[in-house]
């Protein structure tokens, strides 16, 4: 078990204590049950998501990732990241592993910051639901005032935090270390 899992377990413990003080043991078990029901509910999707992330890491051409999403793309990287983020379907159990895979394949962290901003701000799959419940006017206003955000955020990161981006790459490598000992595209070169 890695450090992140242990940290998470500690926070879970404190939340369980909070639940206990608010509603005794029934609330403690209810929280765990609710979480497990959510986990079991998305389990099939999780397996699919990992399969896709794994396939992407095997199939993807590192050259094209670094050309379009990496340092080579320059200022265009955050722009491409934004466009892809706005179009990629799927929930957080899908796009976070995908982002890790893309970063390990050569995408720059700033571009991924643009990607996740666009994905969570106005993904095309989500906009219809937003329009139905919130209305076209508010959805359009929200889109207009945030339209520059993803490119801006990614450019900020690429310009001012290039060193932090390297450390993040090391973090991901550590998280994946035990997971993929061999057969990764990037272990070849």
């Amino acid at each position, binding site marked *: 078990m890695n450090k992140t899992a242990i940290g998470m377990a500690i926070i879970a413990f404190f939340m369980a204590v909070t639940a206990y003080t608010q509603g005794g043991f029934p609330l403690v078990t209810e929280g765990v049950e609710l979480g497990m029901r959510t986990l079991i509910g998305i389990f099939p999707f999780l397996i699919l998501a990992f399969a896709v992330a794994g396939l992407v890491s095997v199939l993807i051409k590192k050259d094209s990732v670094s050309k379009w999403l990496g340092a080579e793309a320059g200022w265009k990287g955050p722009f491409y990241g934004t466009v892809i983020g706005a179009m990629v379907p799927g929930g957080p159990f899908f796009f976070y592993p995908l982002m890790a895979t893309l970063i390990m394949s050569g995408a720059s962290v700033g571009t991924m910051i643009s990607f996740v*901003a666009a994905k969570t701000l106005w993904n095309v799959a989500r906009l219809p639901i937003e329009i139905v419940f919130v209305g076209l006017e508010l959805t359009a206003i929200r889109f207009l*005032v945030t339209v520059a955000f993803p490119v801006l955020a990614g450019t900020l990161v690429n310009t001012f935090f290039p060193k932090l981006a390297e450390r993040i790459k090391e973090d991901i490598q550590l*998280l994946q270390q035990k997971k993929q000992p061999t057969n990764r595209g990037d272990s070849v070169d």
Partner: protein
Amino acid sequence: MFLNVLPLLFFAFILVGYLNLLLPKEILQSWLGEEAGWKGLFIGPAIGALVQGGPFAFFPLFDAVFRGSVTTGTAVAMITAWGMINVGHLPYEAAFLGPRFIMLKYGIYILFPTVAGLLANIIFGP
């Protein structure tokens, strides 16, 4: 890859369960009464970031509970925060991208929802 992340996901979802349980929607709504005014631009995003669930859960809830009592700016800030800085994403971010990514992402994103709300109020009226 999958089996190694499994213990992490196990605890992560226990956290998600408690978040859902310990944050009753009525309390969230009471933080954002009609009198919130400009503070809505800060309280709104805070609430948006805490509300859990995908678009099919969030938008109906937003429409039913919050839409009637908030300004355009607060609505924009809330929805933007629900997407960009949702705490429900933390387990995934920790599992796949690590602590430094989390600091970077939230450090940069944290003001965006409020700025978006402010822009909406200025350009389109409250």
